[in-house]
């Protein structure tokens, strides 16, 4: 049976929701620590309808009144903002009334319909960008119902997947006969704050992709869809190194950290005895220094992940690719920065999957945000057209009521800002989707730099420059000949003048 781990802060938050609004609902952002344990990372009340409700405060709300549209859109936005190791894992309800957290109440049955509705909406909105993670979509969700009057919490596991014999699934995974089922689920409040292991990675995009359809104007959205599909395929086939090393999938993160510490210490002692590190163990020394650097910066022991991808023209059958002609290219450049938080019980295989998921999530999100803002999905008729999707910025989520900067185990979510957009955009988004107040000053803007606007111009100039060089080199030969013939002409003229003057001299004489 699955168990959900909650922190004290989560209980306080549920209480607060019930007190302030008498009936609230929202999403649960969580993390799958292992097969049986899910950790609740963050609860966010849905405040979509707050504005309309000002004068209706005493209206009694039930689950059947929940706006599934609002919930689905919050769900979607939140999953774009949380790191790849986290996901929206379910829905919570918090009410001042009793009976809400009773397993047999009518309300819980309605919750099934709510899940079903939200799921349909999610599928619809997701279909435009298709794939969302590198992995299979999740089929199990958490339902939490809190009653302030009873001070009780009800926790249920909701499954869309294979459960009834007549299972008939829609395009994705929902059974349309029974709509899914609730099953038992444990929960536990944990006193100690959760410890998170941060990992960082950046993904460098430096690819030129030919655009093979010459007949039509270039459709940006279509091209971006193709990019996402291709990168997803390669990401799935990729390998993730930790601290530049291959780590086996089967061990868990804690084992890896312990092992790393031991070997680092060994190296430290050996390098202190032998201060001049020989070139042969530069790799290890490099790792050590990078760790020390992190410590000095105070950012703790961040594990650096790197992604290596197969160098192949085609992942599967390489035999059937042919030469093709194209008259347009799409050049991607720049990096995407990832920062994820893992539980020390995660296996390395999971950690690697989270890194890949985060890269893909970040790519899809920024492209989606960019495409949503397009008025015309086609490239204008100019020879060069530059798309600049928004860049990723990070902000800390206040946890346990402690100021986020002081807490060592604070976690960061992210938002996307266009060039010139003020950080306050992220502040309001965080309030709306995640129900957190953040200080615009605390938003970390420099994880990714602004796209180099000079980048492409420089590159174009560069190639032009090169061509010019070639041209000058090619033309230098005739030039030299030209100057030589000029000399000749000059000398000839001088000679002529001389002869003429000599002749003139004699004639005059």
């Amino acid at each position, binding site marked *: 049976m699955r168990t959900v781990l909650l922190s004290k802060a989560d209980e306080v938050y549920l209480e607060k929701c019930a007190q302030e609004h008498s009936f609230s609902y929202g999403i649960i952002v969580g993390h799958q620590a292992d097969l049986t344990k899910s950790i609740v990372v963050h609860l966010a009340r849905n405040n979509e309808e707050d504005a309309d409700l000002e004068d209706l405060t005493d209206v009694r709300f039930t689950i059947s009144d929940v706006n599934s549209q609002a919930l689905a859109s919050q769900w979607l936005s939140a999953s774009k903002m949380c790191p790849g190791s986290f996901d929206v894992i379910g829905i919570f309800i918090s009410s001042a009334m009793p009976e809400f957290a009773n397993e047999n109440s009518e309300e819980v049955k309605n919750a099934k319909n709510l899940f079903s509705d939200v799921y349909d909406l999610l599928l619809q909105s997701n279909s435009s960008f298709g794939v969302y993670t590198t992995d299979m979509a999740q089929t199990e969700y958490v339902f939490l119902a809190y009653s302030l009057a009873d001070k009780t919490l009800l926790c249920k596991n909701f499954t869309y997947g294979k459960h009834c014999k007549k299972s008939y699934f829609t395009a994705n995974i929902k059974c349309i006969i029974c709509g899914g089922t609730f099953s038992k689920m444990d929960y536990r409040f944990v006193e100690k704050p959760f410890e998170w292991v941060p990992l960082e990675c*950046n993904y460098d995009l430096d690819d030129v992709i030919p*655009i093979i359809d010459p007949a039509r104007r270039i459709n940006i959205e279509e091209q971006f869809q193709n990019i996402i599909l291709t990168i997803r395929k390669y990401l799935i086939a990729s390998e993730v190194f930790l601290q530049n090393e291959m780590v086996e999938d089967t061990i868990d993160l804690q084992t890896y950290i312990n092992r790393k510490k031991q070997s680092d210490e060994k190296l430290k002692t050996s390098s202190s005895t032998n201060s001049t590190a020989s070139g*042969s163990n530069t*790799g290890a020394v490099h790792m050590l220094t990078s760790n020390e650097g992190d410590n000095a910066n105070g950012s703790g022991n961040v594990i650096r992940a790197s992604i290596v991808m197969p160098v192949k023209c085609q992942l599967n059958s390489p035999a059937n690719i042919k*030469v093709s002609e194209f*008259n*347009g290219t799409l050049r*991607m450049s720049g*990096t995407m920065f990832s920062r994820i938080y893992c539980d020390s019980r995660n296996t390395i295989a999971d950690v690697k999957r989270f890194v890949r998921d985060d890269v893909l999530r970040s790519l899809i999100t920024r492209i989606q945000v960019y495409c949503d803002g397009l008025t015309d999905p086609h490239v204008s008729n100019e020879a060069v057209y530059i798309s600049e999707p928004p860049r990723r910025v990070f902000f800390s989520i206040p946890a346990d009521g402690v100021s986020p900067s002081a807490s060592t185990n604070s976690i960061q979510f992210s938002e996307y800002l266009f060039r010139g957009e003020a950080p306050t955009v992220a502040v309001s988004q965080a309030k709306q989707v995640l129900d957190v107040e953040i200080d615009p000053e605390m938003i970390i803007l420099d994880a990714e730099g602004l796209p*180099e606007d000079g980048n492409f111009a420089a590159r174009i100039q560069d190639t032009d420059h090169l061509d010019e060089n070639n041209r000058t080199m090619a033309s230098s030969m005739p030039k030299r000949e030209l100057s030589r013939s000029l000399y000749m002409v000059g000398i000839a003229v001088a000679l002529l003048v001389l002869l003429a003057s000599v002749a003139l001299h004699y004639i005059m004489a």
Partner: protein
Amino acid sequence: MIFSTLYLQRLERVKLQCSGCLYGVFYGDGTLLLLSFNVEASVGQLNYEHIQHKFPAELDLCGFVNFGDCSDTEAHLNQVISSVDITDNPIVLQCQLGTLVGMKASFLVHGKLEHVPYEVMEAPQLFNDFCFTRLKCGFFLHTLPTPEAIAKEMHVLRKRVADGSLVFNVAQTKIYVSSNCGTQHKGFNSESLIEDLIAELPTPAETPSGNKKKSVAAASEPVKHTGAVGCAYDVINIDVLRSRTREPAVGDAAPHPALSVCFTQEEPSKVQVPLELEAMAILCKKTKLLRLYDVLIESICRSLRLFEQCLSERLTEQEAGTEVKLLTPRSYHFYPQEFGHFLSCAYLDDLSDDEPSVQEKRKRLHRQFALPATRPYFRRANQCHFQADVDAAQTTVTWTPLLNTHLGVRPSGVADGKEYLVNGNYHYYHYLQQQIQDKGWGCAYRSLQTICSWFLLQGYTERAIPTHREVQEYLHKIEDKPASFVGSSQWIGSTELSMCLQGFLNVDSKILHVGSGAELSTIASELAMHFQTQGTPVMIGGGVLAHTIIGVDYCVQTGQAKFLILDPHYTGADELATIQIKGWCGWKGMDFWDKKSYYNLCMPQRPILY
């Protein structure tokens, strides 16, 4: 300085006055192993320029060879010497024609020749001490279809290959080789050698295996699981990856810029050429692992140059034609037995081996390597089959018979005899294979299949092995047999076999009649001659039985002879150990033959083909 025996044998075969280039590998503390040479034409561009990229990486130009008193030595010498990059003291070798007697080797030190002694390395030691790497990767070339543009784009591509972001993965293992961390594995340190890496390669026993592999392991001679068919070297297979993660910006440096995308219209239109390449390198097993990364990068660059050459040649050839069209290049590796090393060529897809321009190139290659133009070496069908690919194919549905079953059989025991064996690879075909119930009548068909497999594996043909039905249909078609013959269980003999070989493969055969089994000893010398000059398997039919002769052990003085027989009447499973122990493939004396029956031998003759 060390010569391989194979190399000396090749030198010995040069019978014309000429000069050429030497290729060798440096290893250990500056030891040079000479492995190959080519022959230079007396006029025009040096052949060296043409073929240098065909060698595996690390096998480099290192000197000059002169056969006899060649007149253009002086002219070539300086040119070749100035192209030698890997050493300041190139080798100059002076050979007599057709013999190794009087061969002189010297180093060229500051313009003066210094005589050096040399050692000889026997072939088994060579195969044991050296190995090859074979990596696969793919790039896209975006270029205008002109030789200049291709040269420029290829240069950019090579720079990208060498920028340190590539990571190599030893296939089927978790061993990775990167530019910043070297080779990562628990057991390795900075002193580890290539042979330590080879020890880590998975053996077939570890991988889930069928019966066939077990029997291979059980055979008397250890079979290399990491090599290639007909080649005794270890081959390390390598996959290529690229690190997509940049080092994070340090200190106050600006962070890396975020993603941006630039759409550009290309005028005139360009082409995208997929470059799926396979690159090889040679390494001494005592080489340090630290060197591996650089060697692998060099091997990719060499393959890219080979592709570039292939694409540019195609464009310049086409200039007279109307439409310029680029084709996909592909790597092919060859392992001529005489060479003792691999040689790689790039051929274009959709351009067949029989295209005149392609034939012309092959002919030139034969000349450059002093190979006879009477047999194929570099046709696509000659390409080397690597064990890794064979294993991959075996896991899918395709079934392949056992290869070269005579390797490892007990010796014949002929006193003072000399063995004359089939020259090249063949597959062992016998009764009941491919679910065909041919027990009691199919032996000659099977013998024919074995002979056809020899022609297939030697690159003479790409035609699939003929089935019983195809043989019967053909014999009916040429009106040798009535219609009722098709689909029947009737025997065929040596003459039918020769007709089929003619029909299917365009191969002529010599038919030899022997009055009785007792007289077979008289043709031993003739068979020896056949194996020396033709080297093809021989079908022998007599009485009710047909066999394949794949070798003869013959003593000229005593006249004693034994025959290496491949028996198609075997009905068991394809297990090498059983086949060898029970004598289905083995040496047979005179008592093997029926004294009273007469025998017909079908001796296929190699067609002249290159």
